[in-house]
């Protein structure tokens, strides 16, 4: 065997492959996304099924600080405190007509946010109503619709479902990413525990709407004025269609249509006494506050 006179030409494609790396990438990416998505869906289902069995007092213990937090803000005006009391009274009256489980109770709080008409329910039966919402409604019925909707969320344990679902998913994600998301997990737990609006699914919102209408039907005997707040919001924002896809609240128009349909069915059922269907005026403590 003699020494080579020159280096041989090595054939290409033995140590490397000429396949487009994008193809490999998308196959892997799609596969991993699919498995992740399926696992997350499974975990959410798990949480939704089991969360209602968590005793309500655990939720209350978790969220006791809201009550303290709300009480310590003593520098509020008398009108604000009066309005909060009025809201609480209305909430308690509605709660007695909401078929709540015996261990569940609701607590209402007013928060000073004049430019945001909003209300949300969170862990432990706490419901927050912004002062901006009081300005938006003209009758007690419209306000009651919003509050009854939030009470229905509490009734169906939606905050517990969405909190435990979110926590499970975060735990899962941080487990597979090797603990790099531990900080994210902590902050999520804190944020979700605090006053962030919990994300409810469209199904949850529809259920809450239905239950709220049932409550109002029992409480007032009719459904007049219930859609007012929602139609006002629609008129103000004119939600774009694509936006509706991403928000968890079902398209407002659909919700209003649904509420109106129910109201019409209702008025058709007892068409004998149309005169009884008048909206109740807003409690003066609330009405004066808005002005």
């Amino acid at each position, binding site marked *: 065997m*003699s*020494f*080579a*006179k*020159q*280096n041989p*030409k090595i054939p290409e494609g033995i*140590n*490397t*492959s000429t*396949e487009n*790396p*994008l193809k*490999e*990438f998308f196959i*892997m*990416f799609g*596969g*991993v996304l699919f498995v992740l998505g399926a696992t997350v869906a499974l975990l959410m289902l798990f949480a939704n099924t089991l969360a209602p069995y968590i005793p309500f007092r655990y939720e209350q213990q978790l969220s006791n600080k809201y009550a303290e937090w709300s009480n310590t803000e003593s520098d509020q005006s008398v009108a604000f405190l009066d309005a909060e009391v009025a809201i609480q009274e209305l909430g308690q009256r509605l709660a007695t007509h909401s078929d709540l489980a015996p261990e569940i109770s609701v607590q209402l709080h007013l928060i000073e946010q004049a430019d945001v008409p909003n209300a949300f329910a969170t862990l432990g039966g706490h419901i927050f109503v912004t002062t901006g919402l009081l300005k938006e409604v003209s009758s007690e019925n419209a306000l009651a619709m919003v509050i009854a909707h939030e009470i229905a969320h509490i009734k169906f344990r939606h905050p517990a479902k969405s909190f435990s679902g979110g926590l499970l998913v975060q735990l899962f994600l941080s487990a597979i990413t090797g603990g790099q998301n531990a900080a994210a997990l902590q902050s999520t737990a804190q944020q979700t525990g605090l006053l962030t609006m919990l994300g409810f699914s469209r199904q949850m919102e529809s259920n809450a709407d239905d239950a709220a209408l049932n409550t109002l039907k029992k409480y007032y005997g009719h459904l007049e004025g219930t859609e007012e707040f929602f139609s006002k919001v629609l008129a103000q924002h004119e939600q774009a269609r694509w936006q509706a896809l991403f928000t968890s609240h079902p398209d407002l128009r659909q919700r209003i249509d649904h509420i109106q349909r129910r109201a019409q069915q209702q008025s058709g059922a007892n068409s004998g006494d149309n005169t009884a269907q008048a909206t109740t005026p807003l409690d003066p403590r609330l009405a004066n506050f808005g002005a």
Partner: protein
Amino acid sequence: MEALIQLGIFALLLGLGFFFGRRAEAKHYQSIFAREDELRQIVVSTDRFPPIEFTNHNAQLVSGNVVISVDYFKRVSAGLRALVGGRIRSYETLLDRARREALLRMQEQARAAGADAIINTKFETSRISGNSNKGVASIEVLAYGTALSPKNKR
């Protein structure tokens, strides 16, 4: 919204990594092919002892090294591979380029020394990744061998 921005940045980095990484790779391979042809006369072998016709030559250490960095796309692709297992094709081309480039640099050094052949060629690799796993990894490939050059140049 924040999540969307993060997703956008991720996609942008991925796209940039893919586009520039792929372009650099294609250009690099072109240059490797051309220089391999050019340096074909400087025979590289792994023999430990000089062949009989080279016993009268001068021996000298020659080396070539290259440091090469992973692009974002390759890194993400390899990260996915780490979940499912299998050949990391995107790293294979990277290391192939690095080894061949190191050999070429060694051959250039040998040519500058007037050598005909290099024996006892060996490779070393080492990883340069900063102080954590988070930085983009880069590796060094070092090729070294004994260059044999004729004693009396005529």
